């Protein structure tokens, strides 16, 4: 399938109403990457894309470099220029492609990876529209390393990312820790990392990489994609459960084990919540049976409110 066709597949999924809603939103980086936001911080990089915003009267103490002398000459009025300098944010879409992401429950509109792809594509579109550079990183199934796409804000970047998102194939065992290590290794400048995963891995294995990311100054937004079968364990018939990643088979009586499963799952989720809270990483749980746009909108609204 050509890049254009793949892009169209994902684009076709975009509801126009959702697109209009998203367009009114913008994803603001909470932490500065380079420069400042809304004039809160001075950008050390002069000449970068600063934008004149408005005049205000001169107040004693203002930087004389910002006096508009031409205006004074014309109007004999002392005014200071206000600038809005929006530093280009680098964003990375990081998608977990372990085998567990291929799970497709009966109620889901797609597999977890499908949902992750859709969300990643939507956010990519949003960010590129904001003139932010977007790149991508995922674990390559065949090679030992990661598949890395350098961030760019060119219009063709969207099609390129959509093409790669479409080619993602879930396979293999737990690899989130390796993926996060790759992020730390490959991303040097402070960036915004959008992580799409089900996080169904031992918590201890991913804590350290996440801390590493935070230490390096990256802002990490975590989208946890789960299926209803995982969150509610609705099975009723005794069956043999086979792990998608390890192939381990276990004989399960769902009715007898459900309560215990839910308790464990709840504890697991609480642990994640606590972790992300401590790391100050936004954590959004999206289920495959939910409307992804609605979930995304809720997230962005909440985030804006927080900022």
């Amino acid at each position, binding site marked *: 399938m050509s890049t254009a066709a793949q892009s169209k597949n994902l684009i076709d999924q975009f509801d126009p109403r959702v697109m209009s809603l998203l367009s009114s939103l913008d994803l603001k980086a909470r932490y500065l990457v380079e420069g400042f936001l809304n004039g809160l911080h001075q950008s050390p990089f002069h000449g970068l894309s600063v934008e004149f915003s408005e005049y205000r009267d001169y107040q004693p103490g203002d930087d004389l470099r910002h006096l508009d002398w031409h205006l004074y000459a014309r109007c004999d009025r002392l005014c200071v220029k206000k600038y809005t300098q929006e530093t280009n944010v680098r964003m990375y879409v990081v998608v977990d492609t372990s085998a*567990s992401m291929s799970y497709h429950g009966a109620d889901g509109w797609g597999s977890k990876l499908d949902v992750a792809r859709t969300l990643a594509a939507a956010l990519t579109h949003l960010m590129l529209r904001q003139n932010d550079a977007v790149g991508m990183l995922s674990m390559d199934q065949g090679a030992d390393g990661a598949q890395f796409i350098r961030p760019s804000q060119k219009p063709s970047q969207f099609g390129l990312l959509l093409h790669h998102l479409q080619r993602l194939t879930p396979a293999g065992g737990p690899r989130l820790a390796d993926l996060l290590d790759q992020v730390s290794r490959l991303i040097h400048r402070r960036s915004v990392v959008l992580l799409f995963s089900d996080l169904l891995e*031992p918590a201890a294995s991913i804590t350290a990489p996440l801390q590493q990311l935070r230490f390096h100054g990256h802002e990490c937004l975590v989208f946890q994609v789960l299926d209803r079968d*995982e969150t509610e364990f609705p099975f009723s018939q005794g069956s*043999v459960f086979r792990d998608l990643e390890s192939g381990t088979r*276990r004989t*399960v009586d769902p009715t007898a084990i459900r309560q215990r*499963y839910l308790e464990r799952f709840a504890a697991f989720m609480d642990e994640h919540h606590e972790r992300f809270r401590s790391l100050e990483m936004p954590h959004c749980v999206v289920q495959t049976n939910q409307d992804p746009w609605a979930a995304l909108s809720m997230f962005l609204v909440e985030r804006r409110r927080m900022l």
Partner: protein
Amino acid sequence: MSLSFLYPLMWLAATTAIVPIVLHLRRRRDSRVVHFSAMQFLEDQPLARRPFISPRDWPLLLLRLLALLLLVAAFALPYFPRMRQPVITDSRVYVLDNTLSHRVDGGFDGARETIVNALSRTDVETQIAVVELTHKADALVSFGEGRDAAMMKLQALEPSYQRGSYLSAFRLANSLLQQSLGARRHIVLLGDSQTNQWDGELGTPPFLVDTEVLLPEVGSPTRPNAALMDPTIQSVPRGNRTIVQCSTRLFRQGIDTDFEVVFRSNRNETARRQVTIPRDADAITISAEWEIQPTEWVLGEIQIEGNPDSMPEDDRVVFSLAPAREGRLALLAGSAFLRTALSPEVMRGRWNVSVLDSPDDVSAAGKTTDFNVLCVESNRLTAARDFVIQALDAGHGVLLFVDRDTAVAEGYLRELGIELNPPGPRGKLPGFRYVSMEHPIFRPFRSPDFGSLDDIEIHHHRNLQLTDASPLAFSHTGQPLIWESNRWKGRLLVFAFTMDRDDTSWPMLPTFVPFLDKCFQHLRRQVSIRTHFEPGETCIWPVDSEEKVNQVSLVAEDAIPPTVVARAEVEQNQARLSIPGRPGLYAIRYDDRPDIAGVLDVNPPAQESYLSYTASPEVVATWQCVQTAVEPSSKSERPVAAHSVREVLRQRLWWWLLLAGLTALMLETLWVSLRTVG
């Protein structure tokens, strides 16, 4: 009964059964297995046993495997072999005597039945072959030939009228045994063991090595029989009529002495004879004569009627006589009797006589050579010496009467190989004392109706001595009176006397003219064509190139209507015809021409009529020899040949397997189609 396969290697194709098995295994689907991603929350649950790798759709897989195996089995050609692999121990050749004499008392039918029973009842360890003896030995059934086919061949056999040699049959049987598999070899003769079939074979060196010969049991050493044999016929001019003299020999053995013999000519009875054979004689000659048209063919038969005997097939003989063809005769004689006897009034239609009186006549005749026979008196040799020699060199016949014993004549005669001795006494002397009655010129005298040689008086004759000549008649003093010389290309008959009253009284006798005609017929140069045959022989029929004949046909004149029984293409001016196996008269016809070119007389072999048998012919012992004892060769352990494809196919087991395999394939196709539709 165990099952075997003619092509067991075909079973290698059964390895393709792995294909459907693999396909079904790949498509297997775990039932009631949930592929789950959050297994870490179920870690305290027991591990499931890995199910037996069972393919999907067991029934369909089994059906496909069944179809595959059935087809492979069909192509491997299964069959039910005999209980055990037989080993050939005995090889046996039956010599089936299919000669005329074996018909007696149903001997041939019984022998054939014996062989059929042997084929059907003998076990497979014994090889059987059959040699049929007719006029030649023929391998009717070979070793290794199917017994069903062999029995069919035997049932199709017809008794023959032919005669053959036991020696040839035994030689053929021996050659068959040389290529047989059994350690023990037998030749079983199923015949009448006729004595004269063993006679004459004593000088044969041994050729039967370690071969047992089983001879038939002989009940009575002889059987009563009467037979006709050796028919002869000749035409004799009597005045202006042509008379046929027909004779045959009647043989009897252990049977009554009185017979009734009927002569028929051109389907008309011409004579009937009541014959009594003297008790001390085994055979007599019977003859009859009747008038014929000299320009027509004479086709007839002689038959014994009313006397049943052991072998009625030899109670009939056939004969034929070609129409007379006028010959051309040159006469150099002054004898009035000769001139009168050879005048056109006497010899009309038989001889066109040219009297050569003058030397010019002789010279002219010598240039044209337009004659068949020359009749000359020795006194004419002075003028016709060269002419006579020229005629003999050209192949024309010469009848020479030596009338003078002068010195001049002596010299000319010497050139012809004739020496004159001093003459004998004169006077009325009896004629002949010893005569070669088998010679054609004297054969008519075998019939008493023709005349008697005793009536002939020889008054005077010359004493001749010939080289390269055979005397045909002797005087009472032992002097040769008539010679036949073969020194020349043409035949030369020399008479030591002339046909004058001074020398003989013969011209006064009614046999004079017929005798002259016989002499001239004998001297006439014509291609000798054999027309008397026995059944089964081969006739080489010469065809004159001027006739422009492409094909020669043999037509059975006895049949109503006449039927073509053989055809042959003419190659190098001759046609090779196979004489039919049934006695009778067979006409030679060219292409589609209606006229008869010749007639072949096919009569039963005379030797077959002598029904004397030998139980233990000593000649058989001379044919056999025994080698020193040796270990049985491995050839005796050789098993029979593997089942032939034909026998295996006949069992049809492969057919049913093929049908079942195709049915299974159809069911599989139907099953899959229904599932797809469903």
